[in-house]
């Protein structure tokens, strides 16, 4: 059977949300926003959950909020997708798989989880047969994986991104691009793709062709997926705790 991960201090809230979800599942309830939660599941962290807006107290009941539901769904999704990945692709056995999945669930953001989901072909259940909550990528039926770091050629016109690295070993070209401002960590905006690529970096506008664009790897600022908003909020929540 699926184990609940041992809580470690930083990820406490995520662990409790995970526990709430599985408890509801065990009671054969379909977890949803507004579901009544057994007080025991919240344990001694009830106050913290309330202050984070993840649950609210209504009379004597503890109710899962929209935010709490969404968070819980995300963490369960990440955990079970990680299990699938470790089990199906990396062929890890039960115990090792569990240990790793417990770590991965906190590391996989919404976007990374979606990428894993697409990679695995939108699996419905985890290796233990439990349901994997569908993500936006499942609804959109996406079949091609879009990695988090992509060559500039993959960006759409108008999209902004951060330069991840310039993948050339040509020292002279590297020096030149760096001097133009194309360097790790700088935000870029792709202005157009045809007939040549044009990007803006600070107050510099640079034009180049395919050969160069393929060597510049970037982290898109926000994907044009419906998940983008959720991803942003998750990030903020984590920051707040950090």
């Amino acid at each position, binding site marked *: 059977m699926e184990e609940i991960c041992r809580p470690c201090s930083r990820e406490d809230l995520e662990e409790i949300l995970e526990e709430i979800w599985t408890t509801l599942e065990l009671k054969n309830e379909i977890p949803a926003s507004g579901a009544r939660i057994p007080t025991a599941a919240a344990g001694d962290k009830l106050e913290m959950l309330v202050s984070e807006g993840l649950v609210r107290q209504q009379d004597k009941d503890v109710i899962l909020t929209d935010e709490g539901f969404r968070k819980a769904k995300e963490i369960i999704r990440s955990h079970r997708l990680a299990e699938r990945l470790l089990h199906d692709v990396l062929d890890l056995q039960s115990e090792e798989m569990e240990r790793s999945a417990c770590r991965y669930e906190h590391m996989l953001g919404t976007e990374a989880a979606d990428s894993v989901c697409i990679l695995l072909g939108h699996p419905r259940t985890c290796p233990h047969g439990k349901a994997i909550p569908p993500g936006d990528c499942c609804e959109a039926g996406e079949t091609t994986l879009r990695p988090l770091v992509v060559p500039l050629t993959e960006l759409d016109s108008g999209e902004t991104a951060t330069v991840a690295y310039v993948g050339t070993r040509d020292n002279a070209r590297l020096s030149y691009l760096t*001097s133009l401002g194309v360097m790790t960590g700088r935000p870029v905006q792709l202005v157009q793709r045809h007939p040549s690529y044009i990007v803006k970096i600070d107050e510099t506008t640079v034009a180049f*062709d395919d050969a160069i664009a393929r060597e510049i790897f970037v982290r898109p600022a926000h994907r044009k997926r419906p998940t983008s908003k959720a991803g942003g909020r998750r990030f903020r929540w984590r920051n707040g705790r950090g």
Partner: protein
Amino acid sequence: MEQAAKTEQTMPPAHGGDPQERKLVLVGNPNVGKSKIFSMLTGQYVIVSNYPGTTVEVKSGKATDLDYYVVDTPGITSVVPRSEEERVTLKTLLSGKVAAVLQVGDAQNLRRTLLLTLALLETDLPVVLDLNIADEAEKKGYVIDTARLSKSLGIPVVMTVATEGKGRRELLDAVSRPSKSSLRFAYDPRIEKAVSELAACLPDYPVSKRSVALTLMSGNLSLVDSLPGGGETENRSIKEIITRTQVQVLEPLSRVIMDARMALVERLIRECVVHKESMGFRSRFAGILDRFSTHPLGGMVLLLGILFVIYEFVGVFAAGTVVDFFQNVIFGEILLPPIIGVLSRIPYALLRDFLVGPYGQITMGITYAIAIVFPTVTAFFIVFSFLEDTGYLPRLEVILNRLFSLIGLNGKAVIPIVLGFGCGTMAAIVTRILETRRERIIATLILALGIPCAPQMGMILGMFARIGFVPLVLFFVLLTVQLIAAGWLASKLLPGQTTAFVTELPPYRLPQLRNVAGKTVYRSYWFVREVIPWFLLGTALLFVADVTGALPGLKNLLSPVVVGLLSLPADTSEGFILGLLRREYVAAYFFDIYGRGLIDNLQAFVATMVMTLFVPCVANTFVIMKERGLLVGLAIVCFVVVYAITAGGILNAVLRLLHVTF
């Protein structure tokens, strides 16, 4: 502060000797206004434009208010040179006698500017940093604490608006007291180890060995060979050290070095720059124009629109209306009759004919140059100078990159080719901005073969203003197809690959009337000074040939080609002979005889094609040989002559076969 500068001037020079000993070298990223600062310091006029690569040669002059010999250099993006003209800048720094370096930077692009500053500081030369284009930076909301930046860098930092002359006094003051920076920063220990190892192999330079070592590690290994003064054994050990370090570090060395500099730059920017809300400086119009001019379709439409305006202004207005006025009214009615009246009293027939005969200095030489070519060329220079200052030319690179890749060039080559429409000689020099020899040869070939220079273009447009617009379009389509075919063939024959295209697009700027007018006057003056002697010489040669009877013989000799192949009157061979001296001369010649009804539309069409393709003028040929070497130069010239005649013959035959008469 003015006072300080003056005192410095009256004091005996620190190093003694003539002022050439104390060089102030202007260095900076492309298109930041180095040439304008040069003008400011020396009072000399230099062409300034709004595109990277305006300056491809080192210019120097005595500073007016300082004890310096100021040297303007082509812009460099980093200390690792990419093309010949960037190499020139580095050579200047390595040449010695550099009293100080004045780095000119764009205040809006401080990151890039400082990245270069750090590299310059490592040379151990005294450096002064001038942040130019301060007005645009201010409008975009950048507030720069120059005092603090100056303290952190350990060198004087000033801000200027060179186009308006703002900040001149502060600049003079700063330049008069350059100081060596005490700023030191360390790289990765493995890099540092390599630096000291490399220093042991390097010969002595006027700059620190540390900076040379770091530059070598930031570039490709081939850079080692282009280093002046290095012996073969030393170079081999230098390469060994670099390769060994590269194997240890794994990451490209230039990245490790750049990252270290960048970390410091980021810290400086955090400390010294505040970016407030922009004042919405970029006008909506500039934004729309920006998108439109690089749009695959919009850009083409805009380009055709611009070409049409040039046709109307240069061809129809200048070469038509204005030239008519000059030729018929000013020369025909006002100037020539009294002059001829006076001179025809000269008792010596030979002298009389020399001045006012059919091959007379005044009636042919001066009239061609001043009445026909001068107005046209001036009109072209006006349009050209205007376009240069808007920042449009680099956008053209974006539009034409794909087309240029067909002929083994990339978008960068647009600049020399477009400049070729101004003057082929100048353009042949500007091919230096291209990265490889192969690209420079192809670009030179295209320029020599079929890019009509301004006067020629003016004449072509003037002629077609009478023949018709459709034939003009046909003419340029045919010409373009030939150039692409020739370029394609050359790219297949020459070994090597097309290099990747990267270029910087300057912002659109509204051209300043003063600058456009200044450039036009400067270029027109250059034209008069440079070209009229050639016109007079050409006319004199024709005169001599005519008098001695050599001309008819020459015409007979060329008749099979001129008459047989091209179906032109036998007399026109003298036009082609003139063309060897100056391109615009042959153009003016055909313009003239077409105007007088001596050739019909079809003949004019064929003649225009041949003279466009025909051999470049003497000056151009010399420059080609100088830049590309005698052998390549000769090969290009021979090819062009044979090709022009063959193509003209085929064109003539096809048009006649199809009964096209226009």
